[in-house]
């Protein structure tokens, strides 16, 4: 059963919302002991289910939804995978949560992730999710819990995820599910705990493309509380011409073959600037922004705190030293460096200018092609033991294929198209701004279905 069939069943009164929510909560609790997909499992989802059961209305009536930890749910601990926010219960609901609940969806919990989204394997956190197909392997990241549970659950379910540089596509690929990252600004970021505001996008992970699209249609659209949000016309769904990104084929041979055989004979196009500069450009901008976003966590108004002594500088240094992971500290230091006077022109500002050129490079291709295709990830889900051996730079290299569209704010969709060594292989479709319809139409055509 997919989301559409489920919602229809609920609205017709054929499915008991309460029974179904009870079932998925029990399943989540059981799976979680082994797989660590949730930081919090809701304790009032059943009450909400009873309410929905009574009126059975809404485009997502009774649909169980898990929410990535970085998206604020009022009153439910939301800590973006970080210990510094342990115990923090938001005073606001993210706009996406409001929109989902208005259409009858039921929030079942908060899914595990790399702290603040800093990572590609969901290992930079205290609650590390395990790949549903092989517990020795990573789910990918940073939306690891979201993708892992989506694959593992036997129930109908969709996950709210978030991507800054590939955090939806990567885990979707590693777990063999569909991950839709919308155009920057199409989904309100109000209530999203920031990683890098000019790059952060809330999106959806689902068992299949159609599920993600249904949820997308509910959460998209302008929101007064997020000044960067926009309305757009998504009607055009005609896909005439697609191309494969040449530089993206420089990956694992088997993955390359699977991708090429899936898309058939199409043209190959080149994105020289993207392939050469996108990764460093992305990390400079995202770390610069992240280092300012994380400044607010100083043990003063919310989250973890310590006994107050010493002056303010000493106090917050102690709090931050204790509760941030090593990766957060690394990004704060690098990000602060990139925007210091003397280096700002060479790093931060140059990266911002380069970003404009990168957008133009993509735009030029979209005048001719509707969709650009690449593998989502250069490898299949790695083993935790191998991840440990990676240097920070090798870690960052994992995002080589996903940072491009993220940097340019382009919508992209990762779909499962096969396996290598029994592990899923993802294909990524990249569209022009607001081309979500085209992506989902083509994605449904290409994705493997069980």
């Amino acid at each position, binding site marked *: 059963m997919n989301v559409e069939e489920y919602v229809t069943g609920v609205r017709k009164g054929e499915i008991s919302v309460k029974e179904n929510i009870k079932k998925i909560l029990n399943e989540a609790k059981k799976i979680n002991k082994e797989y660590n997909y949730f930081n919090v499992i809701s304790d009032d989802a059943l009450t909400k289910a009873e309410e929905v059961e009574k009126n059975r209305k809404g485009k997502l009536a009774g649909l169980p939804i898990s929410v990535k930890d970085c*998206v*604020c749910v009022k009153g439910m601990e*939301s800590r*973006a995978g970080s210990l510094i*926010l342990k115990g*923090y219960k*938001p*005073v*606001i609901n*993210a706009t996406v949560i409001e929109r989902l609940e208005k259409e009858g969806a039921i929030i079942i919990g908060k899914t595990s992730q790399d702290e603040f989204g800093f990572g590609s394997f969901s290992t930079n956190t205290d609650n590390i999710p395990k790949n549903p197909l092989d517990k020795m392997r990573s789910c990918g990241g940073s939306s690891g819990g979201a993708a892992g549970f989506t694959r593992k659950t036997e129930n109908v379910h969709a996950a709210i995820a978030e991507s800054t540089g590939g955090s939806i596509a990567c885990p979707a690929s590693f777990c063999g599910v569909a991950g839709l990252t919308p155009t920057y600004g199409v989904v309100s*970021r*109000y*209530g*999203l*705990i*920031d990683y*890098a*505001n*000019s790059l952060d996008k809330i999106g959806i992970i689902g068992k299949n493309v159609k599920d993600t699209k249904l949820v997308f249609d509910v959460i998209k659209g302008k929101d*007064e*509380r*997020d*000044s*960067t949000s926009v309305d757009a016309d998504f009607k055009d769904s005609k896909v005439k011409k697609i191309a494969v990104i040449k530089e993206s084929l420089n990956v694992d041979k088997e993955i390359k073959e699977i991708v090429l055989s899936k898309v058939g004979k199409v043209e190959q196009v080149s994105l020289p600037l993207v392939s050469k500069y996108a990764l460093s450009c992305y990390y400079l901008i995202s770390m*610069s*922004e992240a*280092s*300012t976003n994380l*400044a*607010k966590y*100083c043990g*003063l*108004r*919310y989250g973890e705190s310590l006994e107050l002594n010493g002056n*303010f*500088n000493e106090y*917050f240094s102690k709090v931050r030293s204790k509760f941030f992971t090593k990766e957060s500290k690394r990004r704060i230091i690098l990000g*602060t460096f990139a*925007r*210091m*006077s003397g280096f*700002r022109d060479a790093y*931060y500002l140059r990266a*911002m200018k380069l970003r404009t050129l990168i957008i133009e490079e993509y735009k030029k291709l979209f005048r001719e092609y509707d969709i650009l295709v690449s593998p989502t990830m250069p490898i299949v889900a790695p083993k935790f033991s191998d991840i440990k051996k990676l240097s920070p730079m090798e870690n960052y290299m994992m995002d080589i294929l996903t940072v491009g569209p993220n940097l340019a704010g382009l919508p992209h969709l990762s779909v499962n198209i096969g396996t290598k060594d029994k592990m899923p292989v993802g294909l990524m479709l990249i569209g022009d701004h607001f081309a979500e319809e085209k992506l989902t139409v083509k994605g449904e055509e290409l994705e493997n279905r069980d």
Partner: protein
Amino acid sequence: MKIGIEVHVQLNTKSKLFCSCSNLGSDEPNSRTCATCLGHPGSKPALNKEAFEKAIKVAIALGCKINNKTFFSRKSYFYPDLAKNFQISQYEIPVGLDGKFEGIGIRRLHLEEDPAALIHKGNTCLIDYNRSGTPLIEIVTEPDFKSPNDVRLFLRKMITMLTYLDVYYRKEESTLKADANISVHGERVEIKNINGLKEIERALEYEAKRQETELQEQQETRGWDSEKGKTYSMRVKESEDDYGYIFEPDLPLFEISKELLEKLKKEIPELGADKSKRYRKDYKLDEQTAEVISNDINLAELYEYTIEKGIKAELAAKWLRRDLLGFLSYDDKELKDVSLNQDSIVDLLKLIQENKITDEVARKLLLDLIKEDFDVKKRVKKEKLEIIFDEGILEKACREVIKENSDAVEKVKKGDEKVLNFLMGHVMKKTKGVGRPDVIIRILKRLI
């Protein structure tokens, strides 16, 4: 001597700069706060249009070039009063650049959020976030001032301008904050966080004198201790402060279209300095009177209204400046603090102009009008306050006064004419001031 200043002005908008919390209102600590002005995770700023437009208006009034596009930046530093440990401010392209006001170059004007207020109590420090997010404009001048007194005069005129634009909430003078740069012979000294006009002048005067005697060898940041009346060293500057500016990624570029600019220009009233000039030219007021009236927008408005209603410019100026302002300043008030009916003032001035009441009666009526409005014409009629031209009544009163004050009369007879005024006062009292003083003196002289 070279002085340049950075002035921070809180704007009197309804809501805060980036959230819908009330900007003015309850003083109960932390009662006007929300996720955004408390810097909670997930909160986002949304620009207050009113604050944006008011900032543009001030930039126009300061003669600035208005950038057709402007954006915000994050100024990063850790301080307990900053909710996010960065301040949303403007850096590369502020609202206004390169202006000139009262002969002083204006380097830039930008819009930013005020931090929270720190309240120190003994060993503890409390934080009140009511102020967090209040819209501030920062005005940076060129180092064009030659003396502390220049600065005071400039700021007075600027405050008048801000009041005219209705952008400034003048709760107390300390809502105006400034940093000042001053160098006499040596290196530049920055004095931080001075509150209020008088303090700015005091601090600069102190620092000017200090630098006369001690050669400033290094750039330095100093604080101002108002109680001791001294500046003190905070730190020696080796380099510029590094705030690691980045573009504020939660806010878009803001366009200032030609249409918006035209609309805002139209909304700007004739400013004090222009009014003063016009009063001197058209109404032939002397410089000082013109300045005094135009300095207070409410007074200027009342003045122009009375003229429009047929009161002679000179007469209105005299009564408003000498008498009305005199009464108000006696109570330490300004015109905006009292509710004065403009039409009643016109009625009163008309009676004076038409010679129907004496100055004495008029002053008393004016004093009553400040307290409470009433129908001036009716009161004058009812209490028979018109000037008496019937000398018979005045003569009767004069005779009574002469009878009751024989000592004084003797003095007059001996040639002490000053005592005549004393007797006249008594006649006035008896007749409720309705007689013209010159007439009474004439009668008294005749009778004695």
